[in-house]
């Protein structure tokens, strides 16, 4: 019996992301459209977001593009008369978007693990059942990719955190966490760029200045960069 034509043949192509799945596209007010990738929170999906971002950035009617975690906020210059047409165009661009890998830089961040800023290390040990030494080792042995910047000037959302040290964000944020705290928020990690309220969990401290508003390129990190944490000191 012959196979119906619409059924895709099993082939190596099936290991690439399923590009037939539609993105979720929704409105935030009148000019902003949020495109969310279907499927997993992973690098292949983020690569498609980067590809979509690249395809859209040259378009005349777009004012701003804000990549997030497997999603992209598209801000138009004008409120569209017919938003359905925009949604359709974005969906078509999403279908066409194949993963690109960004040629990022390698960023090495020296960290003091433990110590006075590691306020949430004991709680992470309790949650994970690991010793503080193991938590620190797992964190600094990881290789991370900058998925997107956001939340605060120059803050990079880092992907690649080992599942053993995932830790949910706090329901009640710390009121004043110092700039430089090395933090874990769910399945992400990052370095706090501002001193202030913060819902992520701190396990260490880094001196690196992540943002300079007067520099030609104010943010140290960019999407696609590879980040490694080097344990400069461990105070346990």
């Amino acid at each position, binding site marked *: 019996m012959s196979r119906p034509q619409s059924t895709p043949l099993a082939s190596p192509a099936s290991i690439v992301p399923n590009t037939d799945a539609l993105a979720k596209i929704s409105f935030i007010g*009148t000019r902003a459209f949020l495109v969310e990738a279907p499927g997993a929170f992973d690098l292949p999906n983020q690569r498609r977001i980067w590809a979509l971002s690249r395809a859209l950035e040259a378009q005349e009617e777009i004012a*701003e593009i804000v990549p997030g975690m*497997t999603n992209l906020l598209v801000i138009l210059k004008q409120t569209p*008369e017919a938003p359905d047409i925009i949604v359709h165009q974005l969906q078509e661009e999403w279908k066409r978007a194949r993963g690109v890998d960004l040629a990022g830089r390698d960023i090495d961040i020296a960290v003091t693990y433990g110590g006075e800023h590691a306020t949430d290390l004991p709680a992470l040990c309790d949650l994970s059942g690991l010793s503080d030494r193991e938590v620190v080792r797992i964190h600094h042995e990881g290789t991370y990719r900058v998925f997107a910047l956001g939340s605060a000037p120059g803050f990079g959302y880092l992907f690649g955190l080992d599942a053993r040290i995932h830790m949910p964000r706090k329901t009640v944020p710390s009121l004043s966490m110092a700039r430089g705290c090395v933090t874990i928020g769910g399945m992400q990690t990052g370095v706090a760029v501002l001193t202030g309220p913060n819902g992520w969990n701190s396990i260490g401290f880094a001196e690196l200045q992540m943002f300079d*508003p007067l520099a030609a390129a104010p943010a140290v990190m960019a999407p696609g960069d590879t980040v490694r944490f080097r344990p400069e000191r461990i105070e346990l």
Partner: protein
Amino acid sequence: MIDIEATGPLNTIQDLGRPGYRNIGVTACGAMDTLALSIGNILVGNTPQAAGIEVQTFPFRVRFSARTAFAITGADCRATLDGIGVPPWWVAQAEAGQLLELSPPLKDARAYLSLAGGADVTPVMGSRSTSLRGGFGGLNGRVLATGDAVATGAATSTFLPKGGFGVVPPAVALKDVFPAGEGGALTIRALPAGEHDLFGADAERFWSQPWKISARSDRTGYRLSGDPIHPLETVEMRSHGVVPGVVQVPPAGEPIVQMSDANTAGGYPKIAGVIEADLWRLGQARIGSMLRFVPATHAQARAIERALGAYIDDVRRTARLVSQALSTVA
């Protein structure tokens, strides 16, 4: 140049904001009532990009160190120049040494002081707006303080009638486009956002009930109090970019509307997004006041934007005509 002789704690230099850097985590900032600032700039002959002073804590007193045209727009703050009343939405000339005083408004929240030539601070990433959270822009990235001097840029020569002149405030000129709310609640139009339907029957209650702007509200966002609303299921959202006007619902069920100093990213379920043409009205809403959300469409938002555009064009034309007429008799 002006010297600040008295100021409340939260007054800042703002322009139309710093859009275009959300992708590196930089908030746009900018005036809460961009319409009032835009009209102020037109009245003193500035370009639309010029910065003014957003006054949201009173009293606010400045002394002019040189002859300067100034405009007061936004909330009616019962302004006086050397003790003589200056009407709201008005432009006039101040002489060197004169004292301008703004008092707490009886309604609305924020007044804008525009100066001919604009507040001359160094632009950072293309804008003079103060980013308090980032600590840059405006006057050294901070709020204005008593004793500060604010320089003004080069002014274009505009001719003002003696005593100045005013424009019809947008709330009056556009009362059919921005209708006063029923029972004193401000009507704010919004579009359903990504997680709207996740709220099931609670989504209906979001639109039907009046919400009170709580005391924990500022330029970053307005926290609303009312009967809490909850999604049917808890969803773990991935962080995504947001813009001012987004209405997010944290776990406690009381919505937050992000405003000019909004975070650039968010992860709470979002039930709605305020249409941009209504954000200036929200920017004038006071703590403790009530508001009600009304569902709108893009087409309706466009119609409101067109009416706003026509009002701004009309003010620009009138200001130019007044100046031209006076220049020929000068």
